């Protein structure tokens, strides 16, 4: 049976919507295998002394849901999600701290996620009353992201394959990284992440009957930053990533020998856009250019990947796993 981690990132909502979210998680008809609350508050508190939280923690214990309260690093939501992504679970259900799932949501999302081996992410409706547009005609394609509402904003009546999701969803863990080059507002982080899963060949599904109520709260929230330049920085990374979407981005931020080994893999990579440390071995643009375009290049760090995979095979095959 697949193991599911429920991950909640929270900031500034100890006494508004976070209790509603925790209550909703505790009352899911399908329990997660673990709940982690990532506390990204400017002044984190020990919530065990608050009666309502003491009850929540007691309920989690009674229901047998292991839980952990982690003080996050104030680097932004994407860092938190990447941490959850790498915790060794098969799937992660990410729930925003102002998004209250109905009791059946995890059960329904896992039904779709476990149904086939190639499902990367599954999301249901994320409704923000009173704005509930008709999204039945929405394509969910990345090209239309600026021209149509997100499919999750309306009541989803029929399962549909899309290219990206937002807010809260269930995703296959450990197969794609969050872009840690985004600023701390992490604008577009979930779009980039789910679209990355789509690019890797996984299905992204918007499914019916899994409704989450988005109690949008102007106070608090993981994105309470207002600096416009941070959003512009992230939007640039988003646009740069999309502009390379028909290519396989290769970033060789590694040693000379690694470049030589990689040169034997390169001919098999379709439409490679290469960024390299040693252009005399593998031609391409500079690593500085990759950082400028994509913000973070650690997602292409072959050594980090081999470490994550517990790799025992050859370096050449590690490059093949990464790029083919």
């Amino acid at each position, binding site marked *: 049976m697949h193991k599911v981690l429920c991950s909640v990132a929270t900031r500034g909502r100890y006494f508004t919507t976070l209790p509603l979210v925790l209550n909703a998680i505790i009352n899911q008809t399908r329990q997660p295998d673990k709940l982690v609350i990532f506390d990204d508050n400017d002044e984190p508190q020990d919530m065990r002394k608050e009666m309502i939280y003491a009850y929540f923690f007691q309920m989690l214990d009674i229901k047998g849901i292991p839980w952990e309260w982690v003080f996050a690093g104030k680097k932004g939501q994407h860092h938190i999600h990447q941490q959850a992504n790498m915790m060794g679970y098969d799937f992660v259900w990410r729930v925003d701290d102002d998004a209250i799932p109905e009791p059946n949501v995890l059960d329904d999302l896992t039904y779709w996620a476990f149904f086939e081996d190639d499902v990367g992410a599954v999301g249901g409706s994320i409704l923000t009353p009173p704005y509930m547009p008709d999204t039945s005609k929405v394509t969910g394609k990345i090209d239309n992201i600026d021209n149509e509402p997100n499919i999750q904003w309306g009541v989803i009546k029929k399962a549909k394959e899309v290219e990206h999701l937002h807010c809260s969803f269930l995703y296959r863990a450990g197969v794609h990284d969050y872009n840690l080059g985004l600023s701390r507002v992490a604008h577009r982080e979930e779009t980039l992440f789910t679209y990355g899963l789509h690019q890797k060949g996984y299905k992204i599904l918007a499914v019916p009957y899994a409704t989450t109520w988005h109690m949008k709260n102007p106070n608090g929230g993981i994105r309470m930053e207002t600096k416009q330049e941070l959003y512009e920085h992230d939007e640039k990374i988003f646009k740069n990533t999309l502009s390379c979407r028909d290519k396989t981005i290769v970033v060789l931020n590694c040693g000379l*020998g690694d470049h030589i080994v990689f040169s034997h893999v390169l001919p098999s990579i379709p439409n490679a856009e290469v960024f390299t440390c040693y252009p005399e071995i593998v031609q391409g643009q500079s690593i500085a250019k990759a950082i400028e375009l994509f913000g973070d290049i650690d997602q292409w760090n072959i050594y980090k990947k081999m470490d994550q995979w517990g790799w025992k095979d050859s370096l050449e095959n590690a490059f093949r796993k990464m790029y083919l």
Partner: protein
Amino acid sequence: MIDEPIIQVGVEGEEQLVEEFKKNLPISELRQLIQTCRTWVGVDSFFQHLAWDEGKPGIVLWGPSDPLIFGHPENINLLKDRSHLVENQFIWWEATEHQRERFVEPHIILKHINKE
């Protein structure tokens, strides 16, 4: 023990071990040298990959890094004992202290050179 010319290849600052020491060669010259030599001996560095790229098998001396991951089966990979491998194979190797006892003894290397 070896009645053939031996060329040491390395970078400025390394200890000279034989009469002919070629320092700081560009990749293209290293490739030429690999093509002209009968065999070569090295440690786990870019050179073993370059020689592999040139299709010239040689002898690689292994210590803390794993030849099953970083080596090439075409070479003679001399590993003294897998117990010397470091647990995390994916760290920066500069952080690994050199320990001579991790490597095979010279007579074992000579035996393989003469066999090549």
